[in-house]
């Protein structure tokens, strides 16, 4: 092996150590004064978290988070968030693929429209869903005639969560698809692979890290969903009262319970971020 050829041998992704070594040899220094606003920003985010942890009444913590209402809300939240993440993947992956790979007039407009739930206040999203699937909504009357009532059911919770979380998955995956490019897909097709085989064996595996982090983001967004859920699904214990709704209600009657549940949600959020970061380094 010649010295010039040896450079090809470098592993595709540098090891953790070499990456840190690269970081420390920065050729241009970041301005020192940026340190202050950066620190303030970090404190602004971290201090409230510390405050809520400090507020937890540890003596009654266990009984508070295991009360019937809390457990019901916790499991409902996990179940509905998992279901809505699945819905986001099933509907969002094809959408991201079309947005990333197809070129047609109006593509930019369509992309903006798909991303609307990202900037829309969730309460408005909930209203919109209500006027679509509610009993007197756009599709609701037809659904009602078929004996299907969506609003104020667990299904409605999943729909509200999917509505607000989908853009996170689509955005994240579309970015990954664009970064990956279509060079490998072209090669695969030239080797005789029909489109479905290319999608299954090349496209999906290559953007898997992007898909995982998109799904984690969607799950996190679903877990924290409040506005659209309470508007479209209401707040029925065990059916539509998810953890954020439970926390909001408890805040009035039993602040200690609210704080304890808030900590549970915080722990779940930290776990989710851990998973998402792990998914990204796997890239």
């Amino acid at each position, binding site marked *: 092996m*010649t010295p010039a050829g040896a450079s090809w041998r470098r592993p595709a992704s540098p090891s953790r150590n070499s990456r840190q070594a690269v970081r420390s040899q920065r050729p241009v220094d970041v301005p020192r004064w940026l340190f202050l606003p950066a620190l303030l920003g970090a404190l602004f985010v971290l201090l409230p978290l510390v405050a809520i942890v400090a507020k937890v009444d540890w003596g009654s913590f266990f009984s508070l988070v295991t009360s019937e209402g809390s457990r019901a809300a916790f499991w409902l939240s996990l179940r509905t968030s998992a279901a809505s993440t699945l819905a986001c993947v099933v509907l969002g992956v094809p959408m991201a693929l079309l947005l990333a790979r197809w070129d047609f007039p109006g593509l930019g407009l369509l992309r903006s429209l798909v991303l609307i739930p990202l900037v829309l206040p969730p309460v408005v999203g909930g209203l919109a869903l209500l006027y679509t699937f509610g009993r007197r909504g756009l599709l609701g009357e037809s659904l009602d005639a078929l004996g299907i009532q969506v609003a104020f059911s667990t299904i409605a919770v999943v729909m509200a969560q999917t509505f607000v979380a989908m853009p996170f998955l689509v955005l994240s995956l579309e970015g990954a698809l664009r970064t990956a490019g279509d060079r*490998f897909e072209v090669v695969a097709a030239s080797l005789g692979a029909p489109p479905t085989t290319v999608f299954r064996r090349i496209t999906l595996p290559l953007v898997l890290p992007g898909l995982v982090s998109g799904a984690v983001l969607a799950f996190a967004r679903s877990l924290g969903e409040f506005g659209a859920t309470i508007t479209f699904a209401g707040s029925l214990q065990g059916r539509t009262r998810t953890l954020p709704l439970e926390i909001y209600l408890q805040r009035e009657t039993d602040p200690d319970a609210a704080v304890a549940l808030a900590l549970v949600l915080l722990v779940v959020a930290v776990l989710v971020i851990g998973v998402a970061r792990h998914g990204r380094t796997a890239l």
Partner: protein
Amino acid sequence: MSVRFSATVPDRQVRVDLEVADGETLAVLGPNGSGKSTVLGVLAGLVRPQSGRITLDDRVLTDVGPGAPGVQVAPHDRRTALLGQDALLFPHLDALENVAFGPRSRGTDRRTARADAQRWLDELGVGDLADRRPGQLSGGQAQRVAVARALAAEPRLLLLDEPMAALDVAVQPALRQVLRRVLQERTAIVVTHDPLDALLLADRVVVLEQGRVVESGPSTDVLARPRSAFAGRLAGLNLLRGTWRDGAVHVRDGWDVHGRVEGTAPEPGHDAIAAFRPQAVAVYRDAARKTLLGSPRNAFDVRVTELEPRADLLRVHAGDLAADVTVQAAAELELVVGTPVTFVVKATEVALYGL
């Protein structure tokens, strides 16, 4: 004819007709932007021409344009494997699975496909790298795996787009030998701007300039006696053909050409070819040579047959050979047609190949 190609792509100002016989390798030469890659893209089904008709083994792949039925077979259904300058091995699959990808996509079962893949890797001399990921392969190794992958797909037409352009010069000769071997009986089109590639890999050459075919013919003819400006600038190679004897190409008595052997040395007595550029040839008047002492090992006594002015140079033709000299040098040497001269070439400037 195995391939008949005729296409117009106005976006890229390409209008090309060409044909490739069964088992023939065609080299497409041309400057950047001459439409070489577009031709491959159209063949592979990646670029839809405005009008054109392509047949491969009498099967219509493309037939579009006014009055045409509008046939455009999808890329995966054309059996035209594409090999580019980057190996583009699928990064999430090891070498073996990369090669097995084509057979698997055509529905071959997993075990047979893997066995096939191993055979192809062995064939290309990288059988021991089967379980390596692409990130663990050198450029030359990766390109060999890519060649194996393309061949394992059993294409009816192999398309190579500057397959060696991205490789270290040190590993090019070895891969060139590999490609020579695998292209022997195959229908293939190789886009290149290296005249040696065209000479050694292809039976026939077409030269594209500004989207048009400006020259075509057998490789040795086009490269040794180019008519188009581009081929002339690029090629105009001196090619001497002979038999391999004592580490040199024996052309005829007194003409043993020494040089660098590219790839594996030919067997004694087999056909071999020596290639060198006219710029590498120094011209001496016959008388001067008697006192010539130095490192160049190749000296050919010839008679000037033609003097061809080229930009700021003069190309001195002597039969099949050519040398570039400055106008001043030509004047000092008093070169005219019929002058006996000696062409001298350093051995390091000569590439020797077995045929």
